[in-house]
């Protein structure tokens, strides 16, 4: 039954629709999409996502009036084998509905944004037919994410986990036959494969954790697992939680599995914003929060989580400083912020972690989307510059005839771009403040939120994490504060390089503002980035998020504002911004000028080269592995098994047996002779019997009739004799 009518207070029966609605949108576009215009496709997909948000809101409302006590909504029995029994059920509590709201809310805004973004992107990349698949993937992602956050067991969570992984793979490799600069290459599909493989390692850990749970607890349903965990040995719990952490490290890009996330920027920017910043990568944080009951029982594992998170936060922040690609900076920033969250949930500050997750979703989505706007602006500028050169027409005139202009792009786009132009490279930007004012102001809001400046959302959430850390893990507190300092610094660097100074490239000079369909969702996100802090203000009587999550997490500490911690972090952030102004803002970069930080020499070069992690992985893992494979293939398989064992031992024996023993003696002299004589006899008889086969159907029937008479006669005789 789709509708569970026994559920209290109505709305719960809507739970399955959070999955069905995106699937509905998906299939609508999949089946009918080829006849739809882009506008309709985008509207259908956005509507599906938006309705999902509405349903999530209703569910959240239902949870709130039910005080969080909601039975899981069973949709169907999925697996029932022996002791293993898994239902397709939806768990509705404050935690999952929060995640649903974030995912579908941010997702909807990004859907709308993507209508505008992809319209131009598919044309710059010269393949408008992929517009539809993009939205199909996006809807699939929403559905999978909803399964992930809505699942009532670790297995359902894993299903969603794999589903989002698949979508991530599909979307990173969306332009699979080119690289990020639209040159023919397999770079993008390599990035997709990298993401897939890195995630597989993490998923492997997750799966082992699930297996352990099943072996030790006999169930995978959340409540049952938590209940059983109290009676399990601490070693078991520690093992489970550590293996879960491996999964988290894969999905949420923690050390050592983070390497896929920067490469994931190969996907279209809305994907980076939705999947690789706001929602999917936070699945790990959600998983730890969901498993809070388990982690509480394993302090050692918690410590490992904290250390992983803190190390990731600092490590990624330093790399971000050295990046030139506008999206790469944000990618490393995302890794760093995820480190914050993981550290927070590791410390047991689940509310702080979730709080940062939500605010981060807002401002990082905002930043990525604005970056996308910048990139598109540069693309347009590049185009117009090329046109202006080619046709000697003013840029303004072209802008009026935008529609025809788009067609013109389709037609002779490929011929236009001779030089390789990277619209994501910050060294090509500069001065966009004037040409793209809306984007600039939105970007500023995102930057301030990320840097943790009062009163933006990031300030409140980050401070809460720092405050928790200062109370429990002083060392970690300082690491995180340092990471926050770097955060503010690289964001400042980015803003100065992108928006201030003079254009360093013709494209930047001709850059154009994005259309409303892209900027309006950004404004919504900007508003959320400003006001998001209100979700959980650290004052008596507020702590809304804390009280809300209390339904699910049970033990929540509500810390008051600590002016020391807030002051230190604000001071650090302001200092960092000031330093960045001194380096990049006071004397803006000019064209082809080296980065001022290059004075640091090898240190800065290491940051730019990501601390050589990829190279180390290559050296430590990939090269030995391929060497080993080569060895196994060439020597063991080729030389030993194939050449020697197979050819000499097996084939030799076989040849002797077959040629000499069987063929010559057994077959030719024995069997052949026998059957040849048999055949002669048969031939002789058949020559006699052939006359019966005369083609007259009735003579056959006569034979049958004769048979009948004889059989009945036999019966008769038998009966008489007896």
């Amino acid at each position, binding site marked *: 039954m789709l509708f569970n009518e026994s559920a209290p207070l109505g709305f719960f029966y809507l739970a399955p629709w959070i999955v069905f609605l995106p699937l509905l949108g998906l299939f609508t576009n999949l089946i009918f999409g080829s006849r739809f215009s882009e506008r309709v496709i985008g509207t259908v997909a956005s509507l599906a996502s938006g309705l999902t948000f509405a349903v999530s809101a209703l569910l959240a409302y239902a949870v709130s009036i039910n005080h969080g006590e909601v039975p899981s909504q069973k949709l169907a029995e999925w697996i029932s084998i022996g002791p293993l029994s898994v239902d397709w059920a939806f768990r509705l509590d404050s935690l999952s509905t929060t995640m649903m709201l974030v995912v579908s809310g941010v997702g909807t805004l990004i859907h709308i944004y993507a209508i505008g973004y992809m319209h131009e992107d598919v044309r710059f990349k010269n393949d408008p037919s992929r517009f539809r698949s993009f939205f199909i993937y996006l809807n699939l992602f929403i559905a999978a994410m909803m399964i992930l956050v809505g699942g009532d067991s670790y297995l359902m969570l894993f299903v969603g986990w794999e589903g989002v992984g698949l979508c991530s793979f599909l979307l990173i490799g969306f332009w699979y036959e080119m690289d990020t600069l639209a040159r023919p290459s397999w770079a993008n599909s390599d990035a997709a494969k990298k993401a897939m493989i890195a995630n597989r390692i993490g998923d492997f850990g997750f799966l082992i954790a699930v297996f352990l749970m099943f072996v030790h607890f006999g169930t995978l349903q959340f409540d049952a697992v938590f209940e059983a965990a109290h009676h399990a040995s601490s070693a078991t719990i520690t093992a489970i939680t550590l293996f879960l952490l491996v999964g988290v490290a894969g999905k949420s890009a923690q050390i050592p599995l983070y390497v896929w996330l920067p490469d994931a920027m190969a996907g279209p920017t809305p994907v980076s914003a939705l999947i690789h910043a706001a929602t999917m990568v936070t699945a790990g944080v959600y998983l730890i929060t969901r498993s809070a009951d388990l982690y509480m029982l394993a302090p050692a594992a918690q410590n490992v989580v904290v250390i992983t998170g803190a190390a990731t936060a600092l490590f990624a922040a330093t790399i971000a400083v050295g990046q030139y690609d506008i999206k790469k900076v944000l990618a490393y920033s995302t890794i760093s912020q995820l480190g914050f969250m993981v550290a927070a949930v590791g410390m047991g500050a689940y509310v702080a972690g979730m709080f940062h997750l939500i605010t981060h979703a807002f401002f990082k989505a905002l930043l990525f989307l604005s970056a996308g706007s910048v990139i598109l602006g540069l693309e347009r500028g590049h185009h117009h510059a090329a046109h202006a050169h080619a046709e000697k027409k003013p840029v303004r005139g072209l802008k009026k005839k935008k529609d025809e202009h788009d067609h013109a792009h389709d037609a002779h786009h490929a011929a236009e771009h001779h030089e390789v132009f990277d619209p994501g490279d910050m060294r090509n930007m500069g001065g966009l403040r004037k040409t793209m004012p809306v984007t600039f102001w939105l970007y500023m809001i995102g930057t301030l939120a990320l840097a943790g400046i009062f009163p933006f959302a990031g300030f409140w959430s980050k401070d809460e994490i720092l405050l928790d850390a200062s109370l429990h893990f002083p060392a970690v507190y300082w690491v995180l504060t340092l990471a926050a300092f770097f955060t503010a610094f690289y964001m400042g660097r980015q803003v100065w390089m992108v928006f201030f100074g003079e254009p360093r490239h013709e494209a930047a000079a001709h850059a154009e503002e994005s259309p409303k369909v892209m900027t309006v969702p950004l404004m919504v996100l900007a508003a959320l980035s400003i006001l998001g802090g209100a979700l959980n203000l650290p004052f008596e009587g507020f702590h809304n998020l804390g009280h809300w999550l209390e339904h699910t997490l049970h033990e929540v500490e509500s810390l008051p504002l600590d002016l020391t911690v807030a002051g230190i972090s604000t001071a650090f952030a302001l200092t960092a911004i000031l330093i960045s102004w001194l380096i990049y803002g006071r004397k803006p970069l000019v064209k082809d000028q080296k980065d001022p930080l290059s004075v640091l020499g090898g240190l800065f070069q290491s940051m730019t080269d990501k601390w050589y992690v990829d190279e180390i992985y290559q050296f430590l893992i990939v090269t030995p592995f391929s060497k080993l494979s080569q060895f196994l293939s060439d020597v063991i398989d080729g030389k030993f098994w194939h050449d020697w064992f197979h050819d000499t031992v097996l084939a030799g024996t076989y040849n002797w047996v077959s040629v000499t023993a069987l063929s010559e003696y057994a077959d030719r002299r024995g069997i052949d002779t026998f059957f040849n004589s048999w055949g002669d006899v048969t031939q002789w008889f058949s020559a006699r019997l052939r006359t019966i086969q*005369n*083609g*007259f*159907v*009735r003579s056959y*029937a*006569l034979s049958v*009739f004769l048979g009948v008479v004889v059989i009945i006669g036999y019966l008769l005789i038998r009966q008489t004799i007896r």
Partner: protein
Amino acid sequence: MVPLNYYIILSAILFTIGALGVLIRRNPLIIFMSIELMLNAANLALIAFSSAFNELDGQIFVFFVIAVAAAEVAVGLALIVQIFKSRHNINVDEINQLKG
């Protein structure tokens, strides 16, 4: 009160006449009719048993036999018409090769 044996004997006689028809007639249509007669004889036996043992299953079986006979006749007659069209002759003794 008719003994069941009488019905069976009648059925046997009818069946044999049908079989004879298949054996001695050359017109495929008549052969077909003879087959129908044989089926009919079998039906009679079935119904007689059904009635004697007071079970309805025999009637059901006859029902199926009738349905199958209808199908058989439809296809068979179509075949005969087709053969006639291509050979202008339907003497079964002369239809002893598969080539048209």
